């Protein structure tokens, strides 16, 4: 009993960490510019496919492909930001939703065209496969790796926010954009860089996701809902919020699948609606 | 208390450690014109938000005439006769001025819930709206969308919307804000022409407006009422000068 509970918690937390990496970029950019980028998971998908191509077609080692997944997603997002998104910063929520949903549609179609509609296979290096025994529990190595990477990223993000000048600018811009501008902070530049970083993280998340949830052409759609739930429940512009919400979501989803399989995703949606009704700005959000 | 059109007792509000309102005691007699002045950040707009119900006080009570309105929703307070205008134009960009004021009249008359009769059938509401627009000299451009109106006209429309609710107490938040010199005469005559039955409390930085129209001035600073008095008393008081008038001479 305890064993399976621990197993559910561990797997759920690992899944939650994946969701965190996928979502944190969207939460911060949404909180900063209020720009609803529903195509966030398209960048994640891009990162995933970059990794797949590099490891399967070009024989790169998995770990080496990860930075490239990050960079490619970040670069592509910069292009989109310059060409399209910039024009819509002052547009309505709805327009931003629609534009970015259109991009999702296109990305899904392109992915299907290039890679087909099947699940993408991935050759994990042997040292990331299997499981290890820790305190009598059998823990998946890849999941441990995932948790490790996430915690490292979280620490890096928090440190950057707290201790670097750029981080201070980010915090200011999220808190009060007008005031930040008035203080001479180049908010547009801060946003562009944050956006690139956030999308890069999404790309990394997409690459890491292949082993946990699989990658196919519809990834941009399928995981959009989960990412939105994390962001809405966690609160816009909050790294802590994303972390907590993602962990909650990951564990609830795993627990739901394990203990109440007939309920399906019902539990997740129910918890989300209930949480949002209680705190519409999200757990860590501000008005 | 029952002789005041609007009164507050012990109104408090804080955001964490930031005190924006502290023990506000206000009495506005019917038909009077009071001005609320103070430096930026003194809590003047916050006070308006507290009185109108857009912000919930931590402590205190608010009365409209003899009736306590502390627990009423903002729209209910409007129905009782308490209405405000906004410092930044808060209008309906794509509605024409006629439609906007007619909407306010319909809401007051209880027509706004009826979805079966077409709008032109409500001639009395339209007539009333048009009369208000006429009195504010907005009738000529009342068919154009609000966002095409000149800034000064939009400020007047702010007041028109408030008047359409037939208020007993009118709270004007910086009515002259941003209005260029040549258009402000219009605005002043409108304020002067407001019915004697309405009690008016207005926030203003423009001292011309304040000394011209106010019977009494309330000075706020750091969330508290510093003092109140007649314009002559306030102009002479050194404390006021220190906190507000004497420093930077902004227009």
């Amino acid at each position, binding site marked *: 009993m305890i064993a399976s509970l621990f197993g559910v918690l561990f797997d759920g937390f690992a899944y939650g960490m994946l969701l965190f990496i996928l979502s944190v970029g969207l939460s911060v950019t949404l909180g900063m510019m209020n720009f*609803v980028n529903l195509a966030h998971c398209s960048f994640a998908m891009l990162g995933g496919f970059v990794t797949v191509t590099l490891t399967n077609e070009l024989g790169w080692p998995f770990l080496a492909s990860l930075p490239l997944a990050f960079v490619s997603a970040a670069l592509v997002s910069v292009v989109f930001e310059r060409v399209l998104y910039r024009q*819509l910063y002052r*547009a309505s*929520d*709805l*327009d931003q*939703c*629609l*534009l970015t*949903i*259109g991009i*999702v*549609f*296109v990305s*899904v*179609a*392109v992915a299907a065209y290039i890679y087909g509609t099947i699940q993408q296979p991935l050759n994990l290096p042997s040292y990331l496969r299997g499981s290890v025994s820790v305190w009598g529990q059998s823990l998946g190595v890849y999941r441990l790796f995932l948790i490790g990477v996430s915690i490292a990223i979280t620490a890096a993000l928090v440190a950057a926010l707290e201790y670097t000048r750029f981080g201070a600018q980010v915090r200011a811009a999220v808190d009060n954009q007008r005031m930040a501008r008035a203080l001479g902070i180049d908010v547009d530049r801060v946003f562009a860089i944050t956006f690139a970083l956030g999308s890069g993280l999404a790309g990394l998340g997409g690459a890491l996701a292949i082993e946990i949830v699989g990658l196919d052409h519809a990834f941009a759609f399928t995981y959009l*809902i989960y990412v*939105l*739930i994390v962001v*809405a429940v966690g609160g*816009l512009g909050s790294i802590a919020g994303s972390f907590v919400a993602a962990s909650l979501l990951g564990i609830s989803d795993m627990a739901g699948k394990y203990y109440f399989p007939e309920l399906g*995703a019902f539990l997740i949606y*129910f918890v989300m*609606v209930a949480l*949002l*009704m209680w705190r519409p700005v999200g757990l860590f959000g501000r008005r | 208390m029952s002789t005041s059109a609007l009164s507050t007792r012990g109104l408090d509000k804080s955001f964490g450690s930031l005190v924006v309102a502290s023990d506000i005691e206000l009495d506005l007699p019917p038909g009077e014109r009071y001005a609320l002045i103070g430096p930026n950040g003194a809590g003047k707009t916050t006070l308006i938000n507290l009185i109108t119900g*857009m912000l919930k006080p931590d402590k205190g009570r608010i009365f409209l005439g003899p009736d306590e309105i502390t627990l009423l929703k*903002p*729209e209910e307070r*409007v129905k009782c006769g308490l*209405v*405000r205008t906004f410092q930044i134009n*808060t*209008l*309906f*960009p794509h*509605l024409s001025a*006629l*439609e*906007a004021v007619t*909407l*306010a009249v*319909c*809401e007051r008359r209880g*027509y*706004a*819930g009826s*979805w*079966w*009769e*077409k*709008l032109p059938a409500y001639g009395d*509401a*339209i*007539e009333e709206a*048009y009369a208000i627009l*006429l009195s504010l000299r907005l009738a000529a451009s009342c*068919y154009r969308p609000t966002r095409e109106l000149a800034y000064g006209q939009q400020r007047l429309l702010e007041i028109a919307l408030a008047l*359409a609710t037939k208020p007993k107490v009118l709270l004007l938040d910086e009515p002259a804000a941003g209005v260029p010199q040549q258009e402000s005469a219009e605005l002043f005559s409108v304020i002067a022409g407001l019915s004697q039955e309405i009690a008016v409390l207005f926030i203003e930085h423009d001292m011309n407006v304040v000394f011209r129209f106010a019977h009494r001035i309330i000075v706020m600073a750091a969330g508290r009422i510093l003092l109140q008095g007649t314009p002559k008393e306030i102009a002479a008081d050194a404390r006021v000068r220190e906190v507000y008038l004497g420093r930077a001479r902004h227009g």
Partner: protein
Amino acid sequence: MVTSAAVAEPQRYLETQIRWRPVEIAFWLATLLPFVLTPNYLVLASQIAITALFALSLDLILGYAGIVSLGHAAYFGFASYTAGLIAKWGWGEPLTGLVIAATAAGVLGYLTGFIIARFRHLALIMITLGLGLLLAEAANSASWLTGGADGLQGVRMWKLFGVFQFDLYGTTAYSYSLVVLFVCFLVARRLINSPFGLALRGIRENAIRMPAIGAPTRAHIRKVYTIAAVMAGVAGALLAQTTETVSLETLSFARSADVLVILILGGAGRLYGGLVGAIIYMVARDQFSGINPQYWYFWIGTLLVAVVIFLPNGILGGAARLVRLFERSRA
């Protein structure tokens, strides 16, 4: 005091705003053309009419009251299943079934309206999405009732008015759907041009100002949301009755997203936007259906991006702008 002559002018102005335009009459006459020009496509035509009605119901809350909903299909599907189940359990009379199903959707809309009216922005979008997904999941799980992934079987409709049978040619289906669409359209038109319609536009234009003029915003939102749910329910029931089947797709996020795209394509807040959008979208999809579905998503995505950047008010908005330009160049 305002003289009656002076007030006649604003009244007349408001009258002209809501008058029936010749192009509207032409539009409705044109809806009769499929009977004559494309008699083999009447089934598609009835699908278009149903989708148009669904889009119109979304327009009431999105285009006029400014409520962004990603879960509007909940009311469509709920009524669809209700109508299907009524027929399956033995009462196949179309009109009464329609009324019952639409009422059921209305009740659901009324209840959820209490939740919806309290939120804005992202929380509202996510809650509408969540509620829609919840209902879809529930329907999926309750396969003993809904037939699950296989859909609802055994829906047999009686003859309409005891005379007209629903058949494969779609004549009855299209006539029925078209008349119902028109009636609902008249109701929507009435609503938009009423003081309530003006209040809705006020909410859309500036929700903060509304309480400041004494408007009970939440009550207004609940009212229009219920009406929109009834109308979506009518559309859903029509679908169940004319196709004699109901599938999980009617409740799905895909359907909610599709109707949103359709409305934006045509132009929200213009009454005819949903109708025009439905015609274009459904006809295009029918033409493209043979080709790989991925191509469809590619072009729809591109179109969506193009509409948002170049035609933010949809096709009707673009047309209105052209008309204004034309009029200005003539003057």
